[in-house]
């Protein structure tokens, strides 16, 4: 009882082989697409590597790159096989390889599916990484003279301008850290010294934000200093003013950006997985129908193609038995307490020549 049996004439077999050849080449292109999507994601993550704390998120683009390369190789081989399948002589070359190839590709499609699912699961790790990374970045904003952190100010400023965001959760994050380096503070001024002394940790805090938080859409020139002090500016109320600074936090902005990228990549990988699966089904039908034709002997006749020769349960049982026997080949037979030298009487009937007369026992010399 075969699974999804179909009849194939010679014409249909040839057409199937040609169509599969083209589809395999399209699959090579989708493999290249997967590879480039993985590369793109890797580049995007590394671009903002300074803003992300150490977290294990590189596995997703690496997986996509590996899957893309393997897909190219597998489908290239598949294309070659299908191209040769039109000619039965050439098919004999590939006959032994085809079944292992199909099994390998079947397991490979699972890898593709896992790759797609990983894209969606990366979000949690990414959020954690961004949270920690941005907190650190804002803290080290002022350290433009410390080697290794010289360009952090520039990176944070460009980030806030590009993604239209301010701070980690909001603009108030800037009020809690000192973002002006001591090199630019006049320690001889009374106000500066007072402010430093009034803070427990000796930090110069103020209700001001860097210029990169300024909102372009504001009708009035940007108010960066004394943001929460209504009387410091004419006709200004900070509780209702929404257009002066960017209201969104950078973590939310970056997370949304990366989630959007990964959702699109995940969708593309899922579609690629479906495509690969359908190509694999076609190759399986081609393989079984060609093998049946060879078994029948007449190359121009009709033949059956199927997905599995017996029903699903029987195939599973047979394969499990094969695996068990493979395991048993190394085991010792425990019937005679493990001693292989005991003579076990034969239960099969012996054949003693044409007249079937058992041999006379030669008496032993005592």
């Amino acid at each position: 009882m075969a699974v999804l049996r179909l009849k194939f004439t010679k014409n249909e077999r040839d057409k199937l082989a040609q169509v599969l050849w083209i589809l395999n080449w399209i699959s090579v292109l989708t493999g290249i697409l997967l590879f480039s999507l993985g590369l793109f994601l890797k580049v995007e993550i590394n671009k903002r590597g300074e803003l992300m704390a150490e977290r294990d998120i590189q596995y997703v683009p690496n997986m996509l790159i590996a899957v893309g390369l393997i897909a190219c190789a597998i489908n290239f081989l598949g294309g070659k096989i299908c191209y040769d399948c039109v000619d039965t002589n050439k098919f004999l070359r590939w006959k032994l390889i085809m079944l292992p190839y199909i099994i390998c590709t079947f397991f490979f499609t699972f890898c593709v599916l896992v790759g797609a699912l990983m894209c969606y699961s990366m979000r949690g790790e990414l959020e954690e990484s961004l949270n920690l990374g941005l907190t650190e970045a804002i803290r080290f904003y002022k350290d433009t003279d410390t080697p290794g952190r010289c360009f952090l100010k520039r990176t944070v400023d460009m980030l806030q301008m590009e993604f239209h965001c301010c701070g980690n959760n909001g603009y108030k994050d800037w009020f809690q850290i000192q973002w002006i380096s001591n090199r630019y503070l006049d320690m001889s001024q009374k106000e500066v010294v007072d402010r430093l002394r009034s803070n427990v940790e000796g930090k110069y805090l103020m209700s001001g934000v860097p210029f990169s938080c300024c909102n372009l859409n504001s009708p009035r020139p940007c108010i960066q200093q004394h943001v929460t002090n209504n009387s410091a500016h004419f006709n200004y109320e900070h509780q209702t003013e929404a257009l002066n600074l960017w209201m969104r936090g950078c973590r939310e902005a970056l997370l949304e950006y990366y989630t959007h990228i990964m959702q699109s990549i995940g969708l593309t990988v899922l579609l690629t997985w479906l495509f690969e699966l359908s190509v694999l089904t076609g190759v399986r039908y081609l393989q079984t129908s060609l093998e049946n034709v060879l078994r029948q002997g007449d190359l121009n006749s009709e033949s059956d193609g199927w997905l599995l020769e017996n029903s699903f349960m029987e195939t599973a049982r047979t394969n499990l038995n094969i695996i068990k026997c493979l395991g048993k080949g190394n085991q010792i037979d425990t019937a005679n307490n493990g001693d292989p030298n005991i003579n076990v009487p034969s239960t099969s009937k012996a054949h003693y020549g044409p007249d079937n007369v058992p041999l006379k026992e030669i008496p032993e010399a005592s």
Partner: protein
Amino acid sequence: MPFMPVKFNLQKRVKLAQGLWMIYWLSVIVGILLFSLGIFFKIELRKRSEMMDNNESHLVPNLLILVGLLACGVNAFGGKVCHDSLDPIKFAKWKPMLKPFLLLCCGFNALLLLTALLCFLMQFAVYLTLAEGLKNSIKFYKDTDTPGRCFMKRTLDLTQIEFRCCGNNNFRDWFEVQWISNRYLDMSNDLVKDRVLSNVEGKYLMDSVPFSCCNPGSPRPCIQHHLTNNSAHYDYDHRIEELNIWTRGCREALFSYFSSMMTSIGVLIIATIILESVDMAGLKYLTTALETMEDPENPECESDGWLLEKGVKETFGDLLAKLKTLGKTNQVVEGGDSVSIL
């Protein structure tokens, strides 16, 4: 004495037809490229039209779009002719159209040359439009409540951030205009009143720049206000400070952007002219080779191909003579009148 004759046998003719067909399709792709470059250029001009007072000339992108479409059409037709040229029945259809087609190609090449020239010359116009437009943009920066100029502030801020520039010639342009609207100035404040009264035109001028002039690469937080006053900031000397705000003017920045775009488009057009000339030469050789076959029924025979039937000077002489006779057909022959009267 034909100009640059070449002998062709069957194999050479076939090779020429195939090679020419491929070159024609390459030219179609180049035509599509020109078309999309024209559209890209038009979009870029539209995006920055506020900086140019909505006064910019769209001649070059429109011409590019037209030329791109024409190139596609002309080269596709040429490709079809080449494809059919080896089949005598199909080629007979196209034979009468070939001479006008080659003349059309000549005219098209002249149009391409004109477009390339314009690409190089219109850069001056762009420069002047930018200078005028940016001056007005800075003047109208504060008018975010005037209909038609609400978004001037946003556009200018975006331009300064994107192109890393400040002001028209440099940042001092901001010192000469009032860029803070009166709506946000506290007129009851003495300082404000003094400053406004001290100015002849009653403008509130100060040595400050908007936030979009700030350079993110500066190691210190941006100094926007009291730029020329060294004592207003700790450890600050405005004469040697280069990293604080962008020192380049926006006119120079925008002009170099558009100029590089127009120069590369011009170079591409010159390459297209060369490609089109190669196409025309190839087609002329192919058609003459097919026409001079002694025995049309026998495809194996040899034939000659050339660029011009007579030498260059003779062809020009013939052309001039033809133009003269075209002019003369409208003139009345004097002898004829007297004959008819009689």
